[in-house]
């Protein structure tokens, strides 16, 4: 008796204390006096929608739970130490951070101008009949699985790099170049949409002042779309940071910090891919999961920034039109 009462009590409490968002959910259906079927249907879809939120939280929790050992033992030093020595149970992730940063930087340095160039060509220059098929083909580039990029990387790009003077062929530069090809479609397709959202009046004003087509693009269109383009770059960065297979296959997989981009390196995603099944004791696995947790956190932040920037352009267009 007392037990049922307490459950009812808890439910009541929960209803009062949960944030308003949840409160309105609990009340949904019953408040409006819906039919039984309708209420059931709402609850059913709600349950599935809720499972997505729960799943996301569960992923974060599981990552944390399985890296506790490593977090406890190494603390923040995990990110400053450059020894990665499974034999002596000493783990530091700095080489992977460095490799991830270098490859992503190289990838962005190449793909930003190229991807933006394509986007400008598609939105400002090419007629519709040319622009649509090209945009489709660029998106096809994003559909190719990353393991196939890796395959091309190993058998085509690596020999090319070697013939160009890279001592091993594999290395951080090679990985960066391959990544660049993979993220161009992200930069292009979003930049193109952002550019096409720039009001036509902006272009006409520039042209009427005597600007050339390029001056119009450079002075009137691009500045207007700036934050959206930066958003596209961030989105591409998030992809590059988490990209695993292609990078693993061409970076050389050596946990060292070398200044030369031609040297082999290692990235966060690659070390997880390579060593996870070889990790023989808990601390080792925990260290790898902590690398994954960090990667998870970084991509969430970068993605969130990207979305904010892209949204800000959408808002600007809405307000002015």
């Amino acid at each position, binding site marked *: 008796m007392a037990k049922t009462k307490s459950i009812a009590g808890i439910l009541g409490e929960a209803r009062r204390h949960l944030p308003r968002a949840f409160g309105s959910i609990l009340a949904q259906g019953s408040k409006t006096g819906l039919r039984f079927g309708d209420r059931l249907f709402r609850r059913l879809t709600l349950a599935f929608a809720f499972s997505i939120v729960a799943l996301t939280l569960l992923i974060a929790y599981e990552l944390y739970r399985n890296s506790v050992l490593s977090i406890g033992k190494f603390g923040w030093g995990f990110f400053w130490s450059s020894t990665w020595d499974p034999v002596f149970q000493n783990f530091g992730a700095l080489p992977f951070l460095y490799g991830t940063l270098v490859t992503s930087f190289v990838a962005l340095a190449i793909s930003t101008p190229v*991807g933006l*160039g394509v986007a400008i060509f598609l939105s400002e220059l090419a007629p519709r009949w040319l622009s649509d098929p090209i945009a489709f083909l660029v998106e096809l580039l994003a559909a190719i699985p990353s393991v196939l990029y890796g395959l091309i990387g190993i058998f085509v790009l690596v020999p090319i790099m070697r013939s160009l003077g890279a001592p091993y062929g594999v290395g951080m530069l090679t990985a960066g170049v391959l990544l660049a090809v993979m993220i161009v479609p992200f930069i292009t397709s979003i930049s193109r949409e952002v550019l096409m959202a720039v009001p036509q009046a902006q272009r006409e004003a520039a042209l009427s002042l005597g600007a050339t087509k390029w001056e119009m693009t450079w002075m009137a269109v691009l500045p207007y779309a700036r934050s959206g383009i930066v958003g596209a770059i961030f989105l591409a960065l998030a992809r590059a940071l988490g990209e695993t297979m292609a990078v693993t296959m061409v970076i050389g997989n050596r946990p060292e910090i070398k200044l030369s981009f031609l040297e082999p390196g290692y990235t966060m995603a690659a070390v997880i891919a390579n060593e996870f099944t070889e990790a023989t004791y808990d601390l080792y696995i925990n260290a790898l999961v902590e690398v994954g947790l960090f990667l998870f956190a970084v991509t969430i932040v970068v993605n969130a920034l990207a979305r904010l920037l892209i949204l800000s352009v959408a808002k600007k267009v809405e307000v002015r039109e």
Partner: protein
Amino acid sequence: MIPRGYRRRKVVNALMLSLTALCSLLTMSILLFILGYIAYQGITAIDWDFLTKLPKPVGETGGGMANAIVGTIKLLLLASLIGVPIGFLGGVYLSEFGHNKFGFLVRYAADLLNGIPSIVMGIFAYTILVLPMRRFSTLAGGVALGIMMIPIALRSTEEFLKLVPASLREASLALGIPEWKTIVFIVIPAAMRGILSGITLDLSRVAGETAPLLFTAFNNRFWSPGWLQPTASLPVMIFTYAISPYEDWHRQAWASGLVLLMLVLIANVSARWILRKQL
């Protein structure tokens, strides 16, 4: 009279505009090269044995990847069984009832889920399934891929349901048809093609995922009976064979690369084709 710097401006204009055209040309040729190269290497490497036989023991040439092809199909089936219902019904919620803070929260969570690197999804499936069961399995791989399918299934369902005109709903409700029947029998069928194309696109995206399978479905040189054994899959086979030192394995990596590419491209193009017929 020609203003000062006029010629320079013209030159800059022509130069920069042709540079953007050059960027497009470069990107196009890289795409065509990749597709062409995989097709060329794949066609010269593929044979009937490849599609119907099991891998030979290490060191022997010949054999095939029939088990990996079946493994990939099983993984995709399982992934759809997990990802599609959650994404679809969640999407129905978002479009029909989700104009509140909770709906915002779900969209936000789906965006996060979409941004999570695939290798991290592998870790998650490993910690919730492989560790407790103490074995790699098709199930774990399917779950990892299934979770990756959720965000796109969700958002495409929501977007296409929102495109269904309000008048259609109102007409049905005005006839006294309950809300749930309106949604299930009127609104969803009207958006079905769009939703289907979204899900096909979603499948084509996860079909090539390798990273989440490395330590969930793992690999297997034999047939994998049932759902609780490690299984081979095309992407993982490509990875394993490509980084191996054997010439014949490289050949087979290209052959499986071609099969995987065809699978992904066919799904991708047919998704767009389904959509075009609707609009």
